[in-house]
């Protein structure tokens, strides 16, 4: 995903929604990059975790299409390390919820094979469905 950041795209509605759902104040972030540096999912992400915050600060809704928000597994590494006390895991959750709350699933549950369903423990299925389905 390419993010074009410019002041003309500023959309305070997205920022307001994310702040309301997450309960976090995004303007506290000064983009030191500590969250991105410690993120275990980083190698597979299409934009950096702190770029997600920047996109929301500037109101760029393309961030909702990014893979990054779904690759975040809520491990809270960023949350415990942030020098500004911003809980990015809550911001990621808010962004996922902006899709899920429109009754749109991120995964297709029906695609799971019987073999997979037999093998996967309930803890994996329940947590996955809670994070990936509406």
């Amino acid at each position, binding site marked *: 995903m390419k993010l074009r950041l410019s002041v003309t795209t500023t959309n305070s509605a997205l920022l307001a929604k994310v702040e309301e759902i*997450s309960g976090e104040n995004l303007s506290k972030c000064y983009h030191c990059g500590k969250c991105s540096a410690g993120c*275990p999912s980083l190698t597979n992400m299409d934009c950096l975790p702190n770029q997600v915050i920047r996109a929301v600060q500037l109101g760029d809704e393309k961030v909702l299409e990014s893979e990054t928000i779904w*690759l975040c597994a809520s491990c809270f590494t960023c*949350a415990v390390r942030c020098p500004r006390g911003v809980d990015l895991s809550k911001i990621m959750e808010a962004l996922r919820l902006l899709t899920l709350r429109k009754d749109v699933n991120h995964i297709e549950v029906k695609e799971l094979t019987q073999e997979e369903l037999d093998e996967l423990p309930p*803890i*994996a*299925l*329940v*947590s996955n469905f809670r994070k990936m389905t509406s």
Partner: protein
Amino acid sequence: MNLAYYPGCTLKNQGLGFETSALAAAQALDIEMKELDRWNCCGTVFSLADEDLMHYLAPMRNFVRVQEEGFDKVVTLCSMCYNTMKRTEQIVKDDPEKLKTINEFMYREEDYRGEVKLFHLLELFRDEIGYEEIKKRVIRPLRGLKVAPYYGCMLTRPKEIGIDDWEEPRIMEDLLSAIDAEVVKDPLRGECCGAYHTVNAKELVTERTRMIVSSAKKRGADCIMLSCPLCEFNLDLRQRDTAKEYTDFVGIPVVYFTQLLALALGLTEDVCRFDLHYIDPYPVLVEKNIIEEGEEVHGKKA
């Protein structure tokens, strides 16, 4: 010590050996864990949305069950259950308004008074029994066994509910020292295993499994020890898929902390249940002279 026990879903399924070994080890250390007559799923993941009271109902209902049975303390083994329930415990304790709203919504249940305290079993070993006491009860010291503790995410993060320091935890290291095992400190011990991505993006998990398991192995670990059934699935069974993807990958066994403790306390194989893991821990236990070769384990010789 007498308290209620909340098992959670996976301890009754793939994580059965975690439960059998924990109950037996706890009993050997004079902790009486009484399984709740009724319990429901904790929700596995805590909702990170603000004011999302609906998602606190599952843990709250379990706290009502604990209260109904006359307990004010409940213990859990699974890191994810611990996390979800501990965060709920704190929220309703800190915010009487939220507690009231949820109680009114669950009008068919008795009101939850917000007094139940949740423990992780590791905390009981550290704070209630003490490592010195555990040391005294060891019958079969795990001398020579090199164990890499793996914490994952949910035991130590976020800060408010972690059972130990989130960057430098030692609760599992100290337990291992008490049972005379050798601690292998691995820098990836707090790195996420990929968690629920194992359902829809297996390749993300095999990448992590390769990294985490190889790191422990490189540092000389004979096995990895952990406390989360989802981490266990990812780091143990997913070694099968990791080996398919990375042909140079060589794995090591992954066990629960309660299994090693039970073994050290001299408990028998029918409660340790090492046989339930994908990577068989017996060969290394025999090699290190902890279990004797030919010792009967579930009808098969070690």
